[in-house]
């Protein structure tokens, strides 16, 4: 796009005016069409067809079966648990993201790059390993296992373990969105507020928050999508107890393994809808966040 625009504003003569009206920095039409065609074919095969097939399989046995699978008690309890764990994990990681970004973007201190790398760490850990490490600490044979058993507390194969594993896998989302945004915005505005006598909370709520709100929301949306959809890590710590420690993705797995495909795809279609809503919000909010960043980096 950028290139097209530039060619139009500067005077570039086509190399061969007689034969074609092709600009020197453009490909022939047939090349362009072929490339678009191949790219779309690839995306159709690997993205669009799988997405459509989720809804097709979900509705194949009729709308009655579809809704029956969703309002069945085990499905409802899975939906509830998914909402609960996201409702705990997302706010905690938002709080952490703000604190980490404030420390990293507004101050200069030693070891900052190491800290940024450590914050990104959960992204590079396999989901299965993310679940396993909590079993090693809270499991019956784990570090705190005997103590927990003595006090009749259950973390692994119970809701607290699921919540912790969810927090781990969604840990970096908000922080990694806010850190570059706040670094780009600098701290002149906050410093001006501080010199004028604003308190820490006033500086944050009246100066910083309005500047970062879209970026914050963007990070929270991504965090939420992963929190609700996490499978591997949660699968290790859940114990798969129907109606009590099953989240929606785990419920999908159980139904699928029981060859109850229509019900599995019905619950899966809810998660697919969540993914689509996430993508819509993401592109709306993402555009606003990008504008914020550009405006603020301009001198």
């Amino acid at each position, binding site marked *: 796009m950028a290139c097209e625009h530039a060619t139009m504003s500067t005077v570039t003569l086509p190399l061969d005016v007689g034969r074609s009206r092709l600009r020197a920095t453009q490909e022939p039409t047939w090349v362009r069409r072929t490339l678009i065609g191949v790219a779309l074919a690839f995306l159709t095969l690997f*993205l669009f067809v799988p997405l459509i097939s989720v809804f097709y399989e979900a509705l194949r046995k009729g709308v009655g079966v579809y809704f029956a699978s969703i309002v069945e008690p085990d499905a409802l309890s899975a939906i509830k648990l998914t909402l609960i764990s996201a409702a705990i994990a997302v706010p905690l990681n938002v709080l952490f993201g703000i604190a980490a970004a404030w420390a990293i973007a507004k101050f200069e201190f030693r070891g900052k790059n190491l800290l940024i790398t450590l914050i990104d760490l959960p992204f590079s850990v396999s989901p299965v390993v993310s679940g396993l*490490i909590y079993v090693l600490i809270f499991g019956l044979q784990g570090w705190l296992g005997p103590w927990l058993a003595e006090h009749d507390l259950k973390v692994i194969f119970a809701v607290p373990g699921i919540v912790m594993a969810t927090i781990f896998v969604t840990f970096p989302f908000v922080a990694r969105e806010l850190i570059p945004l706040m670094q780009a915005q600098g701290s002149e505005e906050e410093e001006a507020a501080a010199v004028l006598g604003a308190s820490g909370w006033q500086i944050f709520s009246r100066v910083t928050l309005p500047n970062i709100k879209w970026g914050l929301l963007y990070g929270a949306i991504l965090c939420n999508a992963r929190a609700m959809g996490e499978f591997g890590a949660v699968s290790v710590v859940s114990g798969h107890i129907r109606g009590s420690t099953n989240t929606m993705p785990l419920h999908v797995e159980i139904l699928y393994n029981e060859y109850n495909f229509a019900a599995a795809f019905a619950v899966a279609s809810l998660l697919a809808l969540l993914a689509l809503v996430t993508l819509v919000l993401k592109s709306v909010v993402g555009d606003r966040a990008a504008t914020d960043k550009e405006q603020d980096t301009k001198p």
Partner: protein
Amino acid sequence: MVTTFKRHSVLPGFNLALGFTLLYLCLIVLIPLSAAFIKTATLSWPQFWATVTTPRVVASYRLTFGASLAAALLNALFGLLVAWVLVRYRFPGKQIIDALVDLPFALPTAVAGIALTALYAGNGWIGRWFEPFGIKIAFTPLGVFVALTFIGLPFVVRTIQPVLEDVECELEEAAATLGASRLQTFARVILPTIFPALVTGFALAFARAVGEYGSVIFIAGNMPMISEITPLLIITKLEQYDYVGATALAVVMLVISFVLLLIINGLQWWSRRREDGL
């Protein structure tokens, strides 16, 4: 110490923000991760080595890394193409397609897993076209490759896109006026500029694929020695209450992902420097 830990600032809240950050980081990430290494330290080196190199485990490494590499390569090729088409050309529905590229990030892996399995099984929409030729995709290593391609798809596109948008038109014009064909311009001017981003995207897709679990287990068939990935072996060992064995494998995976993380950080630094230099 000649330099102080922190440079002076008029802004408040440093101690609170950094203190909370470090506490939360330790509790959620660092202490649990260290548990894996401490648990493994109960094994002697020969015991550890024997656990992580049994034939079944080695077969799982071969599948995990082989399929991840193949999927990341396919994604590098098509990711570059998709990024190019999205940045350079105009066509109807472009914005929607651009947004949908992130679908594998947003779609829960279990959903992707069952959808791909239904499609690529012998009677599925896609699988049935291969069945007459005796090619089975679902429940074979080929299925693992398909699932890993799906989940790695956005990485290459999203790392190349911003760099491609910034490629300066003047360079391409200069190449054209000097008599380069479009293909030469691409190979000698554009490709070197976006190459670090391409390699970074490839590494990100590869790293993600190596640890992937949810989308793979449905389509893999999970036959020992043939279509069993390493993360699944960890689960299998856990279910047999072999905590030490599971943790030893987890440590291998962790070390590999840390090395990949270091490589990716280096690549990103290279990419940024290349961009700034232009």
